[in-house]
């Protein structure tokens, strides 16, 4: 499942990191400590984070530093969370967002 993780690198060292369980659209996934929600999803092979409210196009992240708004998702019920900069925490409930985001 973590096939996208870089295990060996000629320059960088990545610490093993402990497992962080979370859920995405009802599926149980596991990230690593130090992940953002977006990096954990990407490592698990998830690229589509939602669909655009107007165009209906699939959305993924684009800038990964919180500049654009391409990665908005619903996290623990709160919409419009920029998952590319939101640290992953154990037990988070992450859902795709397909609308403008309505507060619960």
């Amino acid at each position, binding site marked *: 499942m973590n096939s996208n993780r870089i295990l060996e690198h*000629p320059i960088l060292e990545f610490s093993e990191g402990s497992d962080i369980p979370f859920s995405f659209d009802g599926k149980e996934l596991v990230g690593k400590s130090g992940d953002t929600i977006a990096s954990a999803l990407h490592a698990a092979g998830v690229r589509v984070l939602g669909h655009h409210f107007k165009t209906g196009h699939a959305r993924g992240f684009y800038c990964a530093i919180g500049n*654009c708004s391409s990665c908005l998702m619903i996290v623990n019920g709160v919409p419009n969370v920029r998952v590319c900069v939101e640290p992953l925490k154990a037990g988070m409930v992450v859902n795709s967002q397909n609308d403008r985001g309505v507060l619960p």
Partner: protein
Amino acid sequence: MKKDLLHIKREGLATADDLRGRLPDESTKKEGPYAVIECFEEIPCNPCVVSCRFDAILPFEDINDLPYVDFSKCTGCAVCARVCPGLAIFIVDESMQGEMGTIMLPYEYLPLPEKGEQVMARSRDGSELFPATVVRVLKGGKGKTALVSLEVPKESLQEVRAFSVIEDESPAFHSSETYDPDYESPVVCRCEGVDLNEIRDLIARGYKSVDEIKHRSRAGMGPCQGRSCRQIILNELARDAGVSLDEFEGGSFRPPASPISMDILAKGGEEDAENS
């Protein structure tokens, strides 16, 4: 840009011609290892010169100067090859008897080969030349740039500039399958989902500034505040006006926030700001 650089700047490849003046003469070649520096573009960079303990690289007057080796002084010690951020320095040794010489190549990939291993020698454009034996491996150490020496026939010493460890089974450059997509319009504003046709349509209808287009289409009003779309809209406006962006006047825009004066900041803000 110097004229004679143009061909390399198009492809990123140096030719035999570019190496002229960069290699020692035949008799010096027999005396020992020497550095070949393939750094042809004047960029602000000097670690090679600074690192050479033998003053074998001609001193720079300006940090943008090009490095030239004084082969009478170069010992082939490879200190410069280790520090060069461009990985542009190779150490060639053809002083030994017989057909074979060695070339030492900077290497920053994994896995690092071991002494005695066979690797694929490659040319400047990465194409396969022939299998070669690794004769020496200097691990990267602190700077993490490893140096790997290959045994190579003397006549190929100026061809080999890379190697690869694993058989490269990269898929073909093209795919055979062809596709005739529905041409949709590129998205300009990711936040609000506004595409290029909408923007061009507004410009054609007389909206001639970023602000007008923003209010009409909502492009730039999403959470990213126009960071991704502004440039594209400006390009379209300038193109419509038939001028370059540098001359385009209608491009300025103001965020809704009020202007401030740092003078007031400095004074502690007792007075009211009146600089709008």
